[in-house]
């Protein structure tokens, strides 16, 4: 069978991935450099009988997404740095109330309005810690257009399976560049759909903190009447201030993600077998890193790369193990040092160096190669 191959923009691939994943609902607010996701879905979703809404602001967009998701929709929003800052209120609500949703963040330079049309990777920590209170989140950093499509599908699957917001972090480079995409056929994909609980309505609790399994979120309006609140709640969904309920509820939000890390984690290892320098790079920067590794190897420096695709939860175990073998680690990123903090925290006995460029330009292979040469001398 011949493959369905298309030339696509990164933002277009996200929209395509959302449709393949069975997305029922989009609500968003215009913002550069993510607007194409909304524009494309405003065309695609209505033709499929599904809902597209442009809301009055970023907060409303995620509010509408969560309302639809409580009705059983597979729902998505797309934005960029400043818009994600506004959405944090509802990212926390989605975490607390365990409402599945996919949030696209096509990263641009910041803080504040920053660099609307230029790339950055400065929202890695915002993705993890942007909303107040203790919680866990899943975030994914694809490095290209094809991967954006497949990771959008995976983002929907993880959101439904773990009843959590999932953030897809691309950037202005990936969002706007065009690459070859292999469109998957439906039968080669795993699509996790929203389903009704397997217990009758009168026995249904919307939350379960004790069994270790994520209870399906019953779509509202199907006979499972329950209460949703952003207050700390027990398994019945009603607010509680009992100390054991509070502790269990908090533990669960983190455990349900971190205890399933083997299912959620995803990464690529590149030329690590004999590497004496480890590059930890993600997203668009990993593309330059790959090229820089080839340049370094041609110059006789043994470098390899670990590329997190799931960036949150962070691949702590992999970094620890690699750091035991490889004693020099280089973390190039288009921010002033975010993932490097996690690498430092999780590595053991290795020296960790950063290459931090935030001038609105991609980090080039030459810049990384130059840094590799410096590190190899140290």
């Amino acid at each position, binding site marked *: 069978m011949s493959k369905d191959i298309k030339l696509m923009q990164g933002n277009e691939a996200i929209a395509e991935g959302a449709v393949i994943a069975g997305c*029922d*609902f989009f*609500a968003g607010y215009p913002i550069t450099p993510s607007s194409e996701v909304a524009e494309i879905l405003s065309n695609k979703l*209505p*033709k*499929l*009988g599904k*809902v597209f*809404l442009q*809301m*009055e*602001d970023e*907060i*409303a*967009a*995620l*509010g*509408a*997404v*969560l*309302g*639809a*998701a*409580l*009705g*059983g*929709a597979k*729902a998505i929003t797309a934005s960029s740095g400043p818009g994600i800052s506004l959405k944090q*209120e*509802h990212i926390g*609500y989605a975490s607390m109330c365990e409402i599945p949703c996919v949030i696209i963040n096509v990263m641009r330079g910041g803080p504040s309005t920053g660099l609307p049309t230029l790339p950055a990777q400065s929202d890695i920590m915002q993705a993890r810690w942007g909303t107040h209170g203790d919680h866990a989140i899943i975030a994914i950093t694809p490095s290209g257009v094809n991967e954006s499509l497949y990771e959008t599908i995976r983002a929907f699957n993880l959101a439904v399976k773990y009843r959590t917001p999932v953030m897809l972090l691309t950037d202005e480079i990936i969002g706007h560049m065009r690459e070859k995409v292999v469109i998957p056929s439906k039968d080669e994909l795993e699509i996790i759909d929203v389903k009704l609980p397997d217990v009758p309505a009168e026995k249904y609790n919307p939350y379960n903190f004790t069994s270790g399994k994520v209870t399906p979120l019953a779509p*509202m*309006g*199907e*006979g499972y*009447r*329950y*209460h*949703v*609140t*952003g*207050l700390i709640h027990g398994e019945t969904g*009603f*607010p509680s201030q009992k100390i054991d309920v509070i502790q269990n509820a908090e533990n669960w939000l983190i455990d349900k993600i971190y205890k399933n890390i083997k299912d959620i984690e995803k990464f690529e290892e590149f030329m690590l077998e004999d590497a004496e320098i480890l590059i930890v790079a993600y997203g668009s920067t990993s593309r330059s890193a790959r090229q820089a590794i080839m340049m370094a190897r041609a110059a006789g420096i043994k470098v390899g790369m670990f590329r997190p695709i799931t960036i949150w939860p962070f691949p702590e175990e992999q970094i620890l193990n690699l750091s035991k073998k490889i004693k020099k680690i280089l973390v190039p990123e288009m921010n002033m040092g975010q993932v490097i903090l996690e690498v430092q925290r999780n590595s053991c006995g290795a020296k960790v160096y950063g290459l931090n460029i935030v001038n609105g330009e991609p980090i080039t292979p030459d810049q990384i190669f130059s840094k590799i040469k410096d590190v190899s001398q140290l």
Partner: protein
Amino acid sequence: MIKTKFDYDYYLRKNTLPHIWCPGCGDGIILKALLRAIHKCGYSKDEVVITSGIGCASRLPGYVDFNTIHTTHGRALTFAIGIKMYKPRLKVITISGDGDALAIGGNHFIHAARRNIDMTLIVFNNYTYGMTGGQYSPTQPLDSYSTTTPFGNIESPFDVCNLAQAAGATWVGRSTSYHAVQLEKFMVNALSHTGFSVLDVITNCHISYGRRNKMKSPVDMVKYQKEKAVPARSAENMSNEELMGRFKTGILFEKTDKPEFSSEYYKKLESIKIK
């Protein structure tokens, strides 16, 4: 209209009671009127969705046996729009306080009205942020006192109904927690209306508002509601001086020919859908 006998117990989640509202609070009267109105409209419990924001009034959904979503401060309408657009067959009601609906949620309020989406917003309007201790709200009357206007309020208040009408709502009414029978009737009207309906309900917070404005008992505040309410028809013959410090009650605006958003959306889909 449904013929079966009305029973509060059928609609209440009794295991979540007692409620958090202070003794003498008007919110319970509004809750009861809402349950009677829903019963009169004949809606099943499964088809009703109630969203609310943050504040005293917004705790209401927890006590009633529907699909209930206690959302974030000011944002209840955004969740309501999401679920209504995804499942337009559902009857969606939003409960909000005056601060919730008009200050932090003001943007969502005007845009829901502009869209004329088929849902009902009930504003529990007690002129104050009761839950946080009585700070002034965007509906607090001029010259009145609160914990953050210790020298008297100099900000002009919003008129919920005028704002709703100007923004595009197609059913606008006002009642009070004193006028319980009228309140229920207006709720039935608001719920039955196709389009965005806004019911402003003047209710009493004697603890946080009344106490600082010479109405420290619930009785004082109920008397205030009784005396200051002017039926819209009577107001037509009154001068501005006579209306000073009073508020109009009644069905203040109704329009049936403005297209409703969710049905327009799905109509549009039919014309462009890939068959």
